[in-house]
């Protein structure tokens, strides 16, 4: 049974998701990984405005390949989420709606997901070509000098993920 969800998630929609649910996501997500998280958190600590709206956004831990001519994006599967363990709770407390990545995250992240009624989706690590194909549009949002690690706004269609941590505190792992 495959659920379909449009992003951004509507109020209360995350609460209807259970760990283990297979979901096809459509809508906008933001990419950010190690270096971008460092910069975003430094900007927050300095009280600077962020180059995108964090409230209700979904961050995808990913750094794509360059797009071949005629394609919106290159291959773009998830990276290992646990490297963002130290950043995620603060972003969730500021209103981040959830994350997409791969693999377990820390107990602090799980608590922050419960506390903020957010969600953590696992994308299938290694399925980069398939995820790249599910991207209809990719716009550069911030930090172009980080190359593949820059923040991009992706418009995705039927992006296959599995609910890894739900807001009731359950985990697929």
């Amino acid at each position: 049974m495959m659920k379909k969800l449009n992003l951004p998630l509507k109020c209360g929609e995350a609460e209807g998701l259970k760990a283990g649910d297979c979901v096809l996501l459509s809508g906008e997500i933001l990419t950010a990984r190690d270096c971008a998280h460092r910069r975003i958190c430094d900007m927050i600590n300095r009280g600077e405005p962020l180059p995108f709206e964090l409230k209700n956004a979904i961050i995808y831990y990913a750094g794509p390949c360059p797009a071949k001519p005629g394609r919106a994006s290159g291959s773009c599967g998830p990276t290992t989420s646990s490297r963002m363990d130290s950043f995620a709770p603060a972003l969730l407390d500021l209103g981040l709606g959830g994350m997409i990545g791969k693999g377990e995250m820390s107990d602090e992240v799980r608590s922050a997901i419960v506390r903020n009624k957010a969600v953590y989706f696992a994308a299938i690590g290694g399925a980069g070509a398939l995820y790249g194909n599910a991207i209809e549009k990719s716009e550069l949002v911030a930090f172009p000098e980080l190359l593949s690690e820059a923040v991009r706004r992706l418009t995705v269609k039927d992006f296959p993920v599995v609910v890894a941590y739900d807001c009731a505190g359950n985990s697929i792992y």
Partner: protein
Amino acid sequence: MRIIDTNEIAAKIYEMALRAGTRLTPSCKRALQQAENGENGAALFALHTLNENCALAERENLPVCQDTGMACVMLEIGQDVHLTGAPLTEAVNGAVRRAYADGYFRKSICDPITRENTGDNTPAAVHTDICAGERIKIAYLPKGFGSENMSAIYMLKPAQGVDGIINAIVETVKKAGSRPCPPVYVGVGIGGNFDGCAHLAKRALLREVGSANQRADIAEIERRALVEINNRGIGCQGFHGKTTAIGVSCEWAPTHIAGLPVAVNIQCHCVRCEKEIL
């Protein structure tokens, strides 16, 4: 004596790099297809997605995984070969640079402190061995770091023996859990010294998935470790199930009377490896 221009080696590596980025090895592909049997739920969904992804990447010539890796190039050079042209390492890096640009591969190599990207995925990790003859054997392995990060080296006591070796392998995979993109392929080095052992583990990943070491006692370690890993039930992507690893491949070398080094190099399910002989 045979004269080979390093340009010729570079041209071969360029082709190998382009091919490797978009294809899994046939033995890896078979193992992933077989792993679908008997799985269900999220693990089956994940395996099915991976097999679909592999077919799509091959059909449309796209990088299988966005982590097109650090280029690992292992060369066995016959001592009757005389190399001419650009210095070998420079030629290899030139080939990698061109392949990553032309293949639209991700450039993932950066300064370890400033994290500034080199912009062209160089330098490659180049290893050369001198052997007999007048041929050059080239192995090309683009290695992603989700799995590389989960690798480990242990300096065991000789008394820990075979059980200690198997325990080190199984615990490394267990500790990695869902993070390195299981089902993994596990390369193991047994013996040698600290750095040599790690290199054996990397070389073990060049072997076909499903192959066994020629030494019966080493093959038995591979077999036992694989069974124990898969009994842990981590499963594809950590979603539980039967297949946490598609293989364990061990390579060995003599070691010191005081030591038993064991290196475990984790490879994700994206086994991309090309081999050629010049």
